[in-house]
């Protein structure tokens, strides 16, 4: 187990470094000049050179990449005008456009993304799994068909459509909710939850559809297995057979998939964040890519990559715990 984790960790580090190097390559290959973006249209050659120097863009590319790596492990200094500010390790760089270290930019947005993803995951698991089980137990009947139709519809609806519809319905017509504004959990838990309700459901709708299909298939498959027949042949109650024996087999792949999904959505919920104006990581990626803010993009790549790898590792570990036949190697 320890060996497995160590190997996994080592390969992750290599993977992340390669990813960041790729980001740098892509960045230098872009035709746009960050100095122009910072300075605006009216800037002359002298001013641009000064900004290039300030951003460190006048150094050779490999040196810039080296400084970035140095920052992560030992920290680095930035000169913004006359002052020199130190950025302690692990330093992911400094965003001059936001006038903040990348790490604190990410730090501000991480709770938002965590709140959004965790809540949405609870919703999609509850809705998806129960709809899937219901659908499987009523396979071929009306309930099954209604659930199936609903899940196809939900899966097909783009987030900006389903989110807009929810907004219009609950904020526009029914006035049950105000337009969501992010309130930190630590400030006011009730307001936090109330404001996140619509984003949670928006994000969860399509996911729940996927999980419904998956649960239905898994449940039907498990119910047709030999060991289910054994417990029926021994008079175990049907409710217990479904709830204990069939659920275990059905939920195992679902647990692992949700760990994967959690990792991806944590950094990839751009549409939902943008639609509801939530200052999360997805939104930050979109903004900084548009602004060619290299330090932020590189830093986010690292964090996103790490989140996904951690989630995948967690999924594999969970799998080995839930199913003792799995051997990690």
């Amino acid at each position, binding site marked *: 187990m320890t*060996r497995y984790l160590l190997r996994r960790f080592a390969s992750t580090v290599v993977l992340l470094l390669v990813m960041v190097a790729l980001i740098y390559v892509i960045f230098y290959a872009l035709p746009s000049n960050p100095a122009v973006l910072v300075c605006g249209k009216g800037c002359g050659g002298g001013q641009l050179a000064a900004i290039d120097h300030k951003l460190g863009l006048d150094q050779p590319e490999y040196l810039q990449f080296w400084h970035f790596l140095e920052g992560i492990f030992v920290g680095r200094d930035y000169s913004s005008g006359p002052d020199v500010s130190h950025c302690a390790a692990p330093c992911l760089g400094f965003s001059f456009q936001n006038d903040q270290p990348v790490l604190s930019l990410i730090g501000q947005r991480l709770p938002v993304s965590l709140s959004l993803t965790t809540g949405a995951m609870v919703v999609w698991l509850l809705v998806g799994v129960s709809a899937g089980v219901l659908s499987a137990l009523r396979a071929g009947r009306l309930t099954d068909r209604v659930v199936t139709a609903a899940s196809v519809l939900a899966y097909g609806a783009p987030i900006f459509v389903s989110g807009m519809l929810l907004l219009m319905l609950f904020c526009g017509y029914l006035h049950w909710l105000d337009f969501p504004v992010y309130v930190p959990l630590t400030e006011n838990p009730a307001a936090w939850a109330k404001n996140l309700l619509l984003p949670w459901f928006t994000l969860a709708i399509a996911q729940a559809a996927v999980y419904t299909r998956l649960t239905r298939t898994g449940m039907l498959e498990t119910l047709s*297995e*030999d*060991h289910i*027949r*054994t*417990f*029926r*042949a*021994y*008079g*175990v*109650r049907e409710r*217990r057979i479904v709830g204990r*024996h069939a659920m*275990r*087999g059905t939920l*195992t792949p679902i647990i692992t998939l949700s760990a994967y999904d959690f990792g991806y959505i944590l950094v990839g919920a751009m549409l939902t964040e943008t639609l509801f104006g939530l200052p999360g990581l997805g939104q930050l990626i979109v903004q900084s890519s548009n602004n060619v803010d290299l330090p932020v993009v590189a830093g986010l790549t690292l964090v996103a990559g790490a989140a996904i790898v951690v989630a995948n590792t967690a999924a594999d570990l969970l799998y080995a715990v*839930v*199913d*003792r*036949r799995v*051997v*990690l*190697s």
Partner: protein
Amino acid sequence: MSDADAPVLSVRDLTVDFPAADGGAALRAVEEISFDLAAGGALGIVGESGSGKSTTALALLGLHRRSGARVSGRIMLGDDDVNALDDESVRRLRGRRIAMIFQDPLSALDPYYRIGDQISEVYRTHTGAGRRAAWARAVEVLDRVGIPDAARRARARPHEFSGGMRQRALIAMALACEPEILVADEPTSALDVTVQAQILDLIDELRADTGMALLLVTHDLGVVSRSVERVLVMQNGRAVEEGPVSEVLRSPAEPYTRALLAAVPRIDAPRPARREPGEPLLTVAGLTREFRRPGGGLRHDVMRAVDDVSLDIRRGETLGVVGESGSGKTTLARMIVRLLEPTAGSIVFAGQDITRLPDRRLRPIRRDLQMVFQDPVSSLNPRRTVGDSIADPLRVQGTGDREALRTARELMERVGLDAARHDRYPHEFSGGQRQRMGIARALSLRPKLLVCDEPVSALDVSTQAQILELLSGLQEEYELTIMFVSHDLAVVRQVSDRVAVMHNGELVELAEAGELYDAPQHEYTRTLLAAVPVLA
């Protein structure tokens, strides 16, 4: 008739219909079956696949409920008619008064839960006992069925048990509530012959101890012959013949029973006359294959599947290779046709060392080395027509399309398939027909050596007999040398000139078939032969 003589189970006119999915005519799986099972008695139901024997067994526990099947007739368990009771009453009978064990004990147990918990659950369902008492009972019955160190092993999960131990665990589950009847559906068909003997002994012993009656469903007449007092022969859902097992097997009244008995290969059958063996066609020396165990950690955890095996196969002979699961017989076969690389040793075929021959130079030799697999379903591409599948090896070796297909059709006729069906797909054929396809495909290149890995193990006895006859005819006609790998000692005796016995990767004995069966030299060979149930 006194109460003591009353049967514990009395089935009258049992009929099971499975309605067709498209609303067409229903399939009648079982038709008007009637039989009695005396208290403490043992009845065997034998038949080939599709005879309705398992459907009958499942009906006894009302397991066709909710499946859409229509069950009619009376299934009297004491005074209760299983077929007339409501679902809840039937549920309370199951496991408590009538318990069932199944063919594949691995899939019959829940992979996620501890064995002790699974037995406890059944016990608690019927007795309402507390957790502790139920666990104690689970340990008690596991101990009773011969699980060593039962208190500790009860905490194991099914995958940590061997096949025989799993079947014991399932029998323990059946014992938990002391049922009057044990229904065993092919309980030993997935087990090795020595393990089968142990499990059948255990069932005998438990019957004697507890007085429970046994209903044994099997395709194996040898098993029936040693384990039950009465037998019911089924064919196409109907009862063909019923009577005391010694009478039915010794002097069957019905033609079908006679045909079935005639098809069973006998381990004590006299050896048919053989041709003179030639010089060695293939010589294997010191052949070894190692596999690394998964999850072995830092240690080199190596398993020797085949350990230093040396033998030769002579031109024109059939060399039988027998062994139980894990003996290395399939690994050996695969190395000989170069589907698997040996770790050490050499293979010399027709005077040429082919052990390390690169693929390009091996290709012309592959024509001469062909293999027939156990599972005709999974070894044929379901998306290719039969004609194409048989013609493919020819195409690979450079024969033109038209010529290849013509040869394929000829081969189909030769192996007893209708060549007009060459453009059909494998699923449209029966198991026996698919094995004929596998043989035709292997023959398409006119090989010198045919390696058959369990070629008849998935087939019914009558189909098995036909395929064996076909192989022997082809051997003459095509001047084939055959390596015949099987777990079935009787089949191997019937087809082989010489027989090799494998155990734990090693070749323990190799001798003329008659000698080996009549005067086995090695201890393991003797154990193996003693374990085979012999027809009375």
